């Protein structure tokens, strides 16, 4: 294979970034664009700001090796996603430390620590990340951010959730009653 190709990308606010091809390939969206022949010029990213792009690239860099080994298959491997059919709840409860041997164990531990630090962010960054990951089609990042958002919803009453995210309750009193009645069991 030739020397690593560098891709130039431009965010919505006009800034350009130069990133290794293997790193941007983590984004399905960019990958498709490159495969369609856009890799030689500047790739425009109209829905991504220069503020969030470095954070996204940080994720991509960390997860490049997963993708290299998978070659050019579709959206990569999430280590957290269980293969076990019995207890899998897709991250709803704490993901059990399921690992096979010493090397795998150490790798999983290290990745967990990295993820904890990476996701120590405020709401603004979180939502920027969710939108960017969605647009750039980086499934692992999207799910990681989604899980963080879910953790902010978990255990709260609707009132508390609204307060956390500044959601306006636009139900009429009748509508609100109906919603709560429809699934009364969940509100008890």
């Amino acid at each position, binding site marked *: 294979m030739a020397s690593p190709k560098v891709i130039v990308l431009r965010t919505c606010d006009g800034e350009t970034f130069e990133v290794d091809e293997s790193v941007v390939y983590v984004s399905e969206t960019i990958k498709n664009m490159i495969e369609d022949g856009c890799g030689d010029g500047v790739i425009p990213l109209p829905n991504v700001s220069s503020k969030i792009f470095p954070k996204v690239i940080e994720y991509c860099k960390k997860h490049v090796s997963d993708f290299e080994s998978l070659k050019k298959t579709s959206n990569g491997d999430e280590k957290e996603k269980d293969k076990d*059919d019995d207890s899998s709840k897709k991250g709803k409860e704490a993901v059990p430390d*399921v690992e096979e*041997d010493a090397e795998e164990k150490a790798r999983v531990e290290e990745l967990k620590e990295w993820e904890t630090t990476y996701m120590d962010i405020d709401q603004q960054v979180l939502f920027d990340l969710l939108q960017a990951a969605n647009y750039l089609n980086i499934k692992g990042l999207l799910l990681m951010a989604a899980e963080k958002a879910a953790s902010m919803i978990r255990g709260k009453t609707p009132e508390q959730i609204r307060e956390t*995210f500044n959601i306006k*309750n636009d139900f009429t009193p009748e509508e609100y009653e109906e919603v709560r009645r429809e699934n009364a069991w969940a509100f008890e």
Partner: protein
Amino acid sequence: MGNCVCSREISASAKNSIISTKEIERIEEDRISHLPDEVLGHIITFLTLREAVRTSALSRRWKYVWRTSVSDLDFDAKNMLGTQNHPIHGQEITSKFIRVVDQTLKLLQDFKVERFRICCDLDNRHGSILHRWVKSAIISGTKELHLDLYPRPDYQLYSLPSGLLGSGKKSSLKHLHLTFCTLNILRPYPSFEGFESLTTLSLKHVFLTEEDVGDLLCHCSLLECLKLAECMNLVILRIFSPSLKYLGVNELSDLVEIKLCATSLVTFEFTGHMVNFCFVNVPLLITVMLHIVGFNNSDAAPIALTTFPAHLPQLENLVIYNTKLYFETVFPSESLPTYTNLTRLVMVAKVPEMDFFFWIVTFMKVSPFLKTLQLHLCHLKDESETREIIRVSNIPHRYLKFLEVNGFAGYQEQIDMITYILKNAIALESVLIDPRPRFYLGNGKWKTHNNQWFMPTRERKRIYELLLQEFQTVGAQLTIL
């Protein structure tokens, strides 16, 4: 409508006062509601069903989002209705559970459900209800169906008609898990519609005859994973399946013999009292887990050392639970067959250290190409005072590269054991010692027990230094967690 405006006013004034870290977190606009449906959907998949349903009350925008994004319907009476750990509930709670499931299913009528699970103490009396739910699940294209029922002492188990799984036009069911049910296979013309697409079948405490097992395997031509647990009445288990890759057998109390004729079988895991193992045709079987329980004289280690090498010469990975004491006179290690392909050995101790040690040494002797050795220690007290000292000679092992020790507590016997291995494994590259015990979940997966077990730094250092001296290879790595 009123309360939201109010809270905003309050917070506006609060902003002028001392800003707490909580305030900094809050943002001005409602960004979350502006995310596209699919992103919100991803967020909701991380919530329990109950939490997901509650999002419907957030605002108009959120009212229907949960319905399209819940793809995992886990109706667990314990979690949903707030009853704690004991699965047996009162009649009232069961009725409520039924109502809740019905209501929720009604709201989700048109949406695709990937995984559907019912966990409640339902039985034969609720037959028609359960039939209805299974049908709904199948029609909605579910891929994974779990019926985890709990028996009430006086009632009969729910009987699932085998043909019910064929309710959909084209069966998409891949995984079926039944606990405490009966599989109603009507003869002489049983219907196995819906079973043809199964890749996983897990039956726990399901009454099966040998004919049933044969029929199931015959009709599940894509079956890759079969788990049988606590199924009484099976005396001889005949596994005849060209597609099966994994077989897990757990505590079949009436079992006497297992006959394996499965050309794709890769992994076989067995827990239970001793039976006769007939490996008729398992050319690809390379991983075996053996855990013999019961009070008779059998144990996994002797069998794995005497009969397995001949019947399974291709064996590469072995997980052995060691439950028997070692007596040299009864178990001479001189004339044992060799494992020519065994590269990975996991041994779980259920005996005192000294016995465990002798089994380890014996295994090392008969597995010259062993690359990875993983030990799970438990430090049982050696009750007998009169056991003779058995000498162990140093036998160099030229291939062992990785040693992992779990449940290490720093006892002298444990240190001696590790020292012996370090001395003799002349190709050792890396050693990992973890004080935390691990539990086997099955199918190659372990769970580390995270709480409480840790070694004080000084102790860790002392052991580190002690063991480092024993390393034969230069550049080998020793890690103590």
